[in-house]
């Protein structure tokens, strides 16, 4: 059984509890001065990687957990968070301010990282809560020619490099099995991410954080989609409150819903 070398991609996004506002120029969402944090699904990826090591779930053991993020200077913050949660190292693919990778470009960055880090398991979030694309993990698996298990709610390791993953699908759950190397994307039910403790946050500051550019990876910025405009969704006008159940039934009939 191979020892696991886990690559954990993490993304810095607007905090899930913040209600995003479209900017005045209608070119995107206002990000200046807005609280950012690690994409919640990526926290699950980091947590799962660390648990695999702590609970000794993989017969071959865990040799390395490397967190990686592509983004502006501040993306280093989420890498430090990942290291405070238990990742061994970080790789920061530095982008210019305002530059963003589309999922295909991100998958190409990760393909290169997998080669350089000799990773045999990549655990990604199932989607990032900003773009909501839900593509990067599947694209990476396609580019590498590796098996994939998306929306994982349980991951088990067996003999002979086999990994059994329970996936959340429409209407229930599905279980698939594949061999390392592979790509897994996490769903909410997979685990409950830990909070980084203060001593661990301090320790994380000493862990290695490698900075690279797209050019170092032999890649360049490649945007296939042009955002023509970003608008607020049509506002729903909240209706009236009714006094009692009779009023509710009457109002629903009036609205044609009953």
């Amino acid at each position, binding site marked *: 059984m191979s020892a696991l070398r886990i690559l954990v991609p993490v993304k810095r996004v607007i905090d899930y509890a913040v*209600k*995003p506002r479209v900017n005045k120029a209608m070119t995107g969402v206002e990000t200046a001065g807005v609280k950012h944090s690690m994409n919640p699904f990526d926290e699950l990826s980091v947590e799962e990687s660390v648990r695999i090591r702590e609970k000794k779930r993989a017969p071959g053991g865990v040799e390395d957990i490397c967190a990686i993020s592509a983004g502006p200077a501040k993306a280093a913050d989420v890498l430090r968070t990942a290291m405070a949660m238990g990742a061994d190292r970080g790789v920061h693919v530095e982008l210019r301010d305002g530059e963003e990778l*589309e*999922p*295909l470009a991100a*998958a190409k960055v990760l393909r290169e990282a997998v080669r350089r880090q000799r990773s045999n398991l990549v655990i990604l979030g*199932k989607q990032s*809560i900003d773009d*909501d694309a*839900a593509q*990067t993990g*599947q*694209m*990476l*698996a*396609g580019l590498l020619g*590796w*098996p*994939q298990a*998306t*929306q994982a*709610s349980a991951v088990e390791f067996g003999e002979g490099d086999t990994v059994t993953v329970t996936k*959340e*699908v*429409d*209407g*229930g*759950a*599905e*279980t*698939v099995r*594949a061999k390392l190397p592979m790509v897994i994307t996490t*769903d*909410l039910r997979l685990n409950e991410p830990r909070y980084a403790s203060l001593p661990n946050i301090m320790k994380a500051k000493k862990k290695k954080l490698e900075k690279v550019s797209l050019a170092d990876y032999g890649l360049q910025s490649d945007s*296939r*989609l*042009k*955002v*023509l*405009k*970003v*608008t607020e*969704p*049509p506002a*729903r006008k*909240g*209706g*009236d*409150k*009714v006094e*009692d*159940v*009779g*009023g*509710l039934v009457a*109002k*629903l009939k009036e*609205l044609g*819903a*009953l």
Partner: protein
Amino acid sequence: MFPAVRRAVAWHGSRAIGAAPALSSRAFAKSRLLSTLAVLEQRDGKLNAGSLSAFTAAKKLGGTIHGFIAGGSVSAAAQEAAKVEGVEKIIFVENAAYEKGLPENYAPLLVENIKKGGYTHIISGHTAFGKSLMPRIAALLDTQQISDITAIESESTFVRPIYAGNAIATVESSDSVKVVTIRGTAFAAETPGSGSAVIDEGVDPKAEALSEWVSEELAKSDRPDLATAKRVVSGGRGLKSKEDFDNIMLPLADSLGAAVGASRAAVDSGYADNSLQVGQTGKVVAPELYMAVGISGAIQHLAGMKDSKVIAAINKDADAPIFQVADVGLVGDLFEKVPEFTEKVRSS
């Protein structure tokens, strides 16, 4: 039609009228080259009717439309899909290796058939199947997929919600092949009619299966399917326990002929099954009536239901955010109000 779609169409319409003389001949020349492959889903040889939404989207694009279906025994499903009007061809591949839609061998299969057919657009639903498969195909074709679209403005311009539906982005693709997944609630599924598409066997590259399907556990229910139900009743943390959830929500659902949904809080607390979750990370629904019971209305939940035609809310907290989007709200104890409501609906 839903607000986002209606607005986008209206916007496109007004622009097209202004620019009509210059654009029309070019648009026509392009549309002759446009050809779409709709990827259809099946289970045990039965066509997933919801996946026919891909044809609806394909028709909005114009151009020729083909459908694709693969699995262990798909000829009946292919024949059914062939009855959808306006579809020219259904390509089928019958091989048990594709029955479970494993992306590792299904993606190469689809890519071979896409290359053979020379399609400009590949469309599938943004379902568990489409989400797992389509990005892998896009990567193999070196194209940037456009996910979960709610409207089509032109052959290269699409509208999709981002940030849990808090913003709507209009994006233009420069890729020669557009891989698109669609939000089912924004494109009503075509129904098989009197069409007579040619049914043709596709190429089968017989790619190696890198993964193996082990088992599945599907929640059984006699109630309507959550994603396509006309009415949905959804319960939240306010239900307090699984017993209460079942005692309160199930009779309510049955009185309305509705599907049952749940908030993440209810699912996490074990009141309801995961597959019932409505929201950014669960199902997106847009029924005629959405009834939120004991749900506060966090943005992640609203992302999954705010395109519903009529939203009704019952909550004891008069300041709950759900009331800001609800067409009609009732402030009160759900343990009293819901059974009373259920009784009134039943007797009327």
